[in-house]
């Protein structure tokens, strides 16, 4: 497990050993934090230097010639490095304490939701109201018009909003991923013999939104099996709560949907789970915690406190032993409004597949807040692949602008977690390696695509 949270279900927050409770004494605590701060400084310096000198060769040449210390001193002449490192170090009270955060009732929103009943927001002196919202377009509009301070979104949405596809262009940011994995392709029970995707020609599928990982993963999956997602099948956007009702009525043959929708369809005996999304791309991002650039620049302390609550809640949710307790906290009508067994099957990964088997997949859903910039690049390649965006795309800079990996790194360190030391990584989708530095070549390598 990559995180070690100081939050344990049983331990209180009061200090027993040192002020944070993770170290054997106050002295060890101070030492650890001093080194943590140094590390933080180094990381921020590195990020700034990378931003100023993006070309690897130039940067290395400069550093070799001048020596690192001189080079840094030269850079700090025109960029106040101290200022950048101090933004998050301060623990000033939040500018705004009463916040509204919108969510869609699905298990992807677990950290955002559970932070309310389990007190993660309160711990950071925030009075957050989590408001259930009817659909993605509504959550987008309510965040754009300022009714919500921040919201649960699909991770492609902040990118789409920043690019101005599907709405007016508004600079948007995504400082944390909520969940990884946790989606599934679910088919109506009448298709239980058709397990081979090649036989799905003419199927009608539903995804929650056009700008969703669900849409891109389903398209990817179908295309890998030789089906053209625009010509051989029909894919339509249906809000998650309406999916099961539509499947039962026979309006759709299946969906790639967030949980608990998949498990709920199984629970009601109308569908079976065909493929878990982790089988398509293990540890793929799905939903996200998003806020407008305006909000985070106007309220930096509130933003830091809010993001820290989310990061801590995410870390708490990442521990398998906490999942049962979380399921009970978020199942009631005020949050997901689902039977506890359904939510528990999703979170614990011990679930009925709809065909009479009990499966055990502990990482069916997992939680990892780190917004890898390469995730954003992959999302943009798929947007371009399916014709949602056209022309030149500045992948790396948009990824950096929207996915605030550096902020997450800092706050994860402050929360006592171990963030990764880079902000980009390669990964494998259905056996095919993705290199974030070669997005155009990646798009070109697919046989089925809309982009010319």
């Amino acid at each position, binding site marked *: 497990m990559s995180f070690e949270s100081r939050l344990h279900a049983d331990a209180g927050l009061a200090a027993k050993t040192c002020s944070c409770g993770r170290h054997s004494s106050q002295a060890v605590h101070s030492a650890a934090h001093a080194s943590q701060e140094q590390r933080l400084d180094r990381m921020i310096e590195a990020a700034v230097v990378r931003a100023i000198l993006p070309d690897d060769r130039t940067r290395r040449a400069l550093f070799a010639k001048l020596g690192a210390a001189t080079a840094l001193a030269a850079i700090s002449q025109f960029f106040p490095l101290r200022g950048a490192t101090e933004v998050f170090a301060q623990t000033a009270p939040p500018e705004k304490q009463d916040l509204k955060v919108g969510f869609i009732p699905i298990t992807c929103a677990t950290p955002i939701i559970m932070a309310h009943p389990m007190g993660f927001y309160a711990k950071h002196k925030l009075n957050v109201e989590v*408001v259930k919202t*009817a659909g993605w377009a509504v959550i987008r509009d309510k965040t754009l018009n300022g009714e919500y301070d921040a919201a649960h979104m699909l991770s492609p949405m902040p990118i789409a909003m920043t690019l101005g596809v599907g709405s007016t262009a508004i600079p948007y940011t995504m400082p944390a991923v909520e969940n990884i994995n946790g989606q599934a392709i679910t088919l109506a029970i009448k298709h239980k013999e058709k397990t081979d995707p090649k036989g799905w020609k003419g199927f009608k599928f539903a995804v929650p939104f056009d700008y969703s990982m669900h849409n891109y993963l389903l398209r990817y999956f179908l295309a890998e099996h030789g089906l053209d997602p625009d010509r051989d099948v029909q894919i339509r956007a249906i809000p998650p709560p309406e999916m*099961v009702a539509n499947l039962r009525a026979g309006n759709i043959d299946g969906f790639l949907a967030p949980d608990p929708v998949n498990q*709920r369809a199984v*629970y*009601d005996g109308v569908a079976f789970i065909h493929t878990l999304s982790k089988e398509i791309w293990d540890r793929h991002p799905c939903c996200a915690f998003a806020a407008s650039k305006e909000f985070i620049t106007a309220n930096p302390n509130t933003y830091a406190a809010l993001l820290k609550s989310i990061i801590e809640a995410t870390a708490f949710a990442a521990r398998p032993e906490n999942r049962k307790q979380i399921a009970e906290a978020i199942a*009631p009508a005020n949050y997901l*409004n689902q039977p506890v*067994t359904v939510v528990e099957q999703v979170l614990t990964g011990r679930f009925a597949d709809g065909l009479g*088997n009990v499966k055990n997949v502990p990482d069916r859903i997992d939680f990892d807040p780190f917004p890898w910039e390469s995730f954003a690049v992959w999302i943009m390649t798929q947007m371009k692949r399916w014709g949602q965006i056209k022309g030149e795309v500045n992948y790396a800079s948009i990824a950096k602008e929207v996915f605030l990996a550096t902020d997450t790194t800092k706050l994860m360190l402050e929360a006592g977690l171990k963030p990764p030391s880079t902000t980009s990584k390669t990964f494998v989708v259905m056996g095919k390696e993705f290199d974030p530095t070669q997005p155009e070549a990646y798009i070109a390598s697919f046989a089925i695509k809309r982009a010319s």
Partner: protein
Amino acid sequence: MRAPLGLRAALISLLLCIGLLCVWQVGTARVGATVKLDPDYARLMGITVTQGKSAMPGPADVGAKIWQHLKDPFYDRGTNDKGIGIQLLYSIARVLTGYLLAIAAAVPIGFVIGMSPLMARALNPFIQVLKPISPLAWMPLALYTIKDSSLSAIFVIFICSVWPMLLNTAFGVASVRREWLNVAKTLEMSPARTALRVILPAAAPTILTGMRISIGIAWLVIVAAEMLVGGTGIGYFVWNEWNNLSITNVIVAILCIGFVGMLLDQLMAGLLRLVTYAD
């Protein structure tokens, strides 16, 4: 000897109601076939699968649910979970706000259109184009421009309830008998006095008919609007229970919506009777 008409009608209504309930009971009581399931697997599944129970609730289930809601209609367990009474009050408040605003706009404009053939012709194209627009089509535009979801819902109520009132007011005002207007003229009444003392009472039944149609439409629309924007109100309640696939609660909400709609309509009908006059 025959019983009075009202009594006979009530009897037929009662029989119809019992008949419907019986059909409903028979239709949902059937237990479907169940396959023998592994107990471990069965524990993870819903009762539709394990006991073959119909997903559609029977009248007894709905009755029990209604009782449960009636016992505690005003509970408040957080932002997203409030009692059905609170939700209905939210919806009624929204409807009334939008509706009163619509009256404030429709009656004066209707007067102008009814009294001036020129304005009637000039405004006619706008009215004809705007009238048939589905209220929900306004929603994205309202959310975008007003930037507030509850005001948007009120705006949608306003925009869809304004037309019947406007047209009825214009029609009522235009068809006030010429003789009455001439009498007013002979008595040298001022235009304002004529409008208030002659035209308004004469056109009142038509205006109120328009208002009665409008309140019906407003109540129809609020449910759809709240399902779309969420948050509070009976429409949100329906959506939230749909989300949970709880048909029982959806039926309860449907009955509540029907009941409140009927009350609002009866209220307007009562007002209409007050202003009706024999010619």
